[in-house]
C-alpha cells in the first residue's frame, strides 16, 4: 500500500493513505505497514482525506490500531474525513470512539506546541 508517513516529532507521526479505498483487498497491507508506526510512536494521526470508501474490514483495522495505541497509553487521531466515510463512522457509532479533528492543524495542535 505504501502509506505516506510524515514525522512531525519524535513522538508523533502523520500517516496518509495513497489509495481511495480501505477494504478487504488492501487491509492486510495497511495492518502490516501501520504496525511499525504504532509501535514506535506515542501519537499517530491518520489523514483520511484521500479515503472515499471503507468497508467492515477497514473499520476493523482502524479499530485495531486504536486498541493498540490505547493499550500503550498512546493516541490515535483522525482528521480530514470525507463525507462518505464520516457517514459510515456515524452509522456504526465509531465516531463516538475515535478522536476526530477537522484539520491537520487541530489534530497536531498540542503536539506542535510541545
Amino acid at each position, binding site marked *: 500500500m505504501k502509506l505516506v508517513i510524515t514525522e512531525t516529532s519524535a513522538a508523533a507521526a502523520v500517516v496518509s493513505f495513497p489509495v481511495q479505498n480501505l477494504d478487504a483487498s488492501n487491509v492486510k497491507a495497511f495492518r502490516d505497514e501501520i504496525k511499525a508506526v504504532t509501535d514506535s510512536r506515542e501519537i499517530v494521526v491518520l489523514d483520511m482525506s484521500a479515503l472515499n470508501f471503507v468497508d467492515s474490514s477497514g473499520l476493523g483495522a482502524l479499530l485495531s490500531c486504536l486498541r493498540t495505541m490505547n493499550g500503550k497509553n498512546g493516541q490515535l487521531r483522525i482528521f480530514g474525513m470525507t463525507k*462518505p466515510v464520516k457517514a459510515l463512522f456515524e*452509522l*456504526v*457509532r465509531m465516531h463516538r470512539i475515535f478522536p476526530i479533528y477537522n484539520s491537520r492543524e487541530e489534530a497536531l495542535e498540542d503536539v506542535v506546541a510541545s
Partner: protein
Amino acid sequence: MSATTNPDAIILACWAAADPLLRQLQAEPPLIPMGDKPMLQRVLEKLVDLGCKRIAVVHGNQPQEAEALLGDGERWGCHVAHYYAADDSSPLGLLARLAPAVGQYCVLAPADTVALASLDRNEASVACTLESGKLQWSGWAVLPAKTIRWIAKTARDRGDLESGLDLSTSRLVMTATISTSSVAATLDSLPHLFDCAPGAGGISRRPRAMGIWIGNGSRVHPTARLHLPVFIGNNVLIAENAEVGPNTMIGDGCIVDAGSQIENSVLLPKTYVGQNLDVSRAVLAGNTLVNARLGVALQIQDTEFLRNTDRRGLGCPKANLTQRALAAILWLALAPPGFAWRLKSEGSADRAQATIGVPGAVAGAYLSSKVRFAMSHEGIHAAKEGAWTRHLLATFVPGLRDVISGKVALVGLQPRTVQEILALPYYWQRLYRNAPTGLIGEALLQGTEDASPEMSHAGDVLSATPLPLARVLSVLRRYAARVMTEALARKPEHSGTPRNTASEAVV
C-alpha cells in the same frame, strides 16, 4: 386509457427525481410510501377532497406503476385519465390539450407533494411555503384556462413553470407540505404527516396508541422502545433493545436488528438494518444510505450492516391443509369442554393471574398468540394450580379457529441449514444456538434448564412454513402430557396449593 375533457385537476407526474441523493435510492418520488400509502395516492386523495372529479395525470417515463396505482380512479369516486408525454424534454406541451374551457379553473398538482392547505377551486391561487425567509412554490396552484395554455406553450420544465407563475401578484396561500421531491423534503415532511388528522392528509390507519402506528404481521420485541411519533408498516421486525423514533417511518417488510437506533429517518420497504447501528436524519433503501445531514449517499457492501431483506424466512406462517385438518379435529374434540369451562369460570376474579403468560404476545405486535407452545418458564412456576388446563381451554382451543381458517400455523422453530441461520438477524441466530433441535420450548417443556432471555421471548419466533406433521404431533403430545398430568394430580389434592407442574411433566 380514457380521455377526460375539462379536467378539474392535472397531476404532473412527468419528471424524474431532481434531487441527486434521491436518485441514488432508485426510488420514484411519487411512489415513495409516506405512511400507509404512496405519495401519488395522497396527491389524488387531496384533489378528491377539494372536490375534483375529473383528474388528468401527465406521465413521463415508465408510468406503469403509477398508472396501476391510480387505475381509473373509481376507487376514490373520481375519474382519472392517463396521458403520456410524447416529448420527454417538453412534457408540459400536453397541457394545451388538457386545459379547461375558457373562464374555468383547474388545479395543478405535482405527483410528489401534497399541499396541506385548502384551496378554492374557483379562484386563482398559488400555494407556497416559507423557507429561510423566501417564498417557495409548493407545486400546487389553481389556475385559469389561459394560464394553463400559456404554460403549455412556453414552459419546458419545472423551473419555467415556476418562473411563469407571478408569485408577487397571484393570490398566495401559505401552506405546509408533505413531499417526497427530495430526501430533505421527505424527512421534513414527517412531523406534518404525523400531526395531520387522517382526513386532512395524515395517516389513515388507526394508531395502536397515540402517535404509534404498527401494521399487520409486525412484531416489536418487548425490550424494544418506540419513541412517538413512529409509523411501522406491515411485516416489520423490530428486534430486542432497538429504539425507533421519533419522527420515523419504517416501510413494509423491514427489519431493525438488535440494539440499533433509528430516529428522524425513513426506511423504505424491505430494508435490513444490522445490529447496534445509529441512523439519524437519513433515508435507507436496501443497502443504500442517504445521510441528509451530510448530504451524501453510501452504498454499503457489508450485508451485516445494511441490505435488502427477503422476508420470506421471517413471516407469519399460514397453516397448510394438514394442519388445518388436525386443528379441526382437535377443535371438535375440545371445544365443548372448553365452552363448558368458560361458562363455569366466568366472573372468576383471579382468572388472569392463573393463566400462563405467553411471551411475545405483548406490545400488540402479533395478532394471534393463541397457538404458541413457547411458555415462560417463570410463568409456569408462578402459575396457580390448573394453569395448563386454563391455557388449553382459554387460549389454545380458541386459537385453533385461526389455524382452521388458515390465518396462522401451529408454530415452532423451523429447522434450517447453517447458511440459512447465518443469514438471519442476530437475535434469531441466538435462538437457534439455544434450541439446536429446532423446536423452541423443548427444553422448557422438559423443565431441564432455566430459560435464557431469548427463550423466554421465543413467542416472537415463527417458522417460515408450517412444521412437518411429525414435529407438530410431538409438540402436541408434550402439551397433552402436561395437561393430563396436571389434571390427574389435581383430582386427589384439591387444596389450592400451587404445584410445580412444569417440573413434574413427563415428556
